[in-house]
């Protein structure tokens, strides 16, 4: 096991720059998730760590060795690919033992390592099958087995669950997390799915357009997104973001949406008059208000999920979503009043997109 550090790494394909100076430090034994929309450079970054892509500028170190110019096989990393990349002409046992065989490891030792990995992953009965005789989930496990058998310094996962159906994905998510808790091998996991990132990561790196937007523990990112991009990306259903500006004239700070609707602000915040803001409130932070408090909203759609109720409505001239733990049965067109929880309000500067409140 080893730490991985990425320092000011740049990458471009031909003339298109795809990664603009990314720096991340990954601790020994950590489970780090790189998440971002497609094209944000997360997979490229992972491939650079694996040695499948050159580093144009900057440094990547595994342990204390700079690996920029090392061949993939010299880096002692194992990678799990999105399409599993199993060797189609080899049995499961041969697939898993291939790297050890290349290293001319002792036959008995290979057998033992493959058997124990197969046992961890529940593949013992499938060892003599060919990949095409396996289901998607089983292939996925073989791909992980191939990585485990090597006992590498670092595991790299490149969207390993995206080809699985939803139910299996949830199950494999848990299995991978459990596996990491058992092996404690430094893992870097790339996904575009923020739910995967939230549920699996010890730390998340949110990337966008080749840059790191924010690094932090899942709940820190959720509770205190550093900018508008992270605020919109993390969380499902997504945070409601309402364009507004500061208003003056009253003793307490206040803001108004662009259509003039007044939006309540916490008392400890300072906004200038006319300052362009984005007012962010998560769906679960909207409560039903009575006695004319809160902000008026018109219900358009109600979606009961069983565990909660999602209510989509028009508020301050914008489509927003509120999530209630209780069950409500509003009619479309009904007017309700919603009160944002001021303690968990997110305020951003509209120009820079940066967070304003602490």
């Amino acid at each position, binding site marked *: 096991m080893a730490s991985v550090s990425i320092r000011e790494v740049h990458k471009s394909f031909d003339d298109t720059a795809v990664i603009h100076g990314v720096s991340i430090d990954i601790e020994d034994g950590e489970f780090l998730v790189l998440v971002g929309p497609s094209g944000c450079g997360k997979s490229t970054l992972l491939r650079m760590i694996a040695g*499948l892509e050159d580093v144009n500028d900057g440094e990547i170190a595994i342990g204390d060795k700079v690996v920029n110019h090392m061949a993939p096989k010299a880096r002692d990393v*194992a990678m799990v690919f999105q399409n599993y990349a199993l060797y189609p002409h080899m049995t499961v046992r041969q697939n898993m033992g291939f790297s050890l065989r290349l290293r001319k490891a002792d036959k008995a030792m290979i057998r033992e390592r493959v058997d124990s990995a197969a046992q961890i992953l529940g593949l013992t009965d499938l060892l003599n099958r060919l990949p095409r005789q396996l289901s998607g989930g089983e292939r996925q496990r073989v791909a992980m087995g191939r990585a485990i058998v090597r006992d590498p310094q670092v595991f790299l996962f490149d969207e390993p669950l995206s080809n699985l159906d939803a139910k299996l994905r949830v199950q494999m998510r848990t299995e991978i997390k459990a596996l990491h808790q058992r092996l404690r091998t430094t893992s870097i996991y790339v996904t575009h799915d923020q739910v995967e990132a939230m549920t699996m990561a010890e730390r998340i790196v949110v990337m966008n357009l080749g840059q790191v937007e924010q690094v932090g523990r899942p709940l820190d990112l959720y509770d205190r997104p550093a900018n508008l991009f992270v605020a919109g990306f993390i969380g499902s259903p997504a945070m409601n973001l309402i364009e507004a500006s500061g208003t003056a004239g009253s003793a307490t700070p206040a803001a108004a949406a662009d259509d003039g609707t007044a939006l309540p602000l916490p008392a400890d915040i300072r906004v200038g008059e006319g300052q362009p803001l984005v007012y962010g409130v998560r769906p679960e932070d909207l409560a039903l208000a009575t006695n004319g408090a809160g902000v008026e909203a018109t219900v358009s759609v109600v979606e009961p999920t069983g565990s909660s109720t999602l209510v989509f409505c028009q508020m301050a001239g914008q489509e927003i979503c509120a999530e209630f733990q209780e069950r409500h049965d509003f009619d479309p067109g009904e007017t309700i009043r919603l009160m944002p929880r001021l303690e968990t309000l997110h305020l951003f500067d509209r120009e820079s997109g940066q967070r304003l409140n602490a």
Partner: protein
Amino acid sequence: MEYGRYLRGWAQQALPRLVLAPSFATIVLFVYGFIVFTAYLSFTNSRILPKFNLIGFENYEKLFGLRHWSTAIENLVIFGGLYIAICTAIGLTLAILLDQKIRAEGVLRPLYLYPMALSFIVTGTAWKWFLDPGIGLEQTLQSWGWASFEFDWIKNRQMAIYTIVIAAVWQTSGFVMAIFLAGLRGIDNEIIKAAQIDGASNLRLYARIIIPQLRPAFLSAFVVLAHMAIKSYDLVVALTGGGPGRATEMPATFMYSYTFTRNQMGIGAGSAVIMLMMIAAVIVPYLYAELREPRHGR
């Protein structure tokens, strides 16, 4: 109205059959009909013209007693074996080299394929001149001052069959390369990356991961080359004419000369049937495997 719709429906159904019927009938008559006719003739005592007196397996007994026929079969074994092996080796090597993301691939690929566009007659004639000791390679190198250089295989009874191998390999290697190149392009790039991370050197990568996955390409190449070897006729005629003497006689040239110039139509037909069976032995298992096994998506 009702009748019109019926007629249109009938026409729509029948049209494909109507369009295909002439070529289908032609094929049935001229390919399969004449196969049956030839097979029948091989059991008759036909000489210069077809006769219909059945004489059982006599022609086959005579055929396998002929020194001439066994030479043809021996030559086929030498030629076929070397031709298939060398073409496969060169084709695979060229394909692997061409697959290294080199710059001039677009120019080189058609260059290698080009010989395939020539008729075997052209190839044979060109190589006949090139290999002729009096006017070709030997003469040229000697006139340049390498007086001791000798390359007279084409005039040598022992070696002449190998000149046919050389010319045939020159013609077909590029085509085999195209088969392998398509196979290489079909291999999932991620699998190659996975093998690199697993620690495979380039040599191991090809030996253990890539070449084993080219099995379908090997099979296609083998079937194409094997049937071309068995029916090779024009190249032999153009290059050596079956000579010197009968040193490069092949089953196809044998069949032609016995049927049409030596007035032994019965024996010629017998040799044709044997060739058909050889080709069937190659192609039928291939077709069977191809048609039976549904393609697996990976």
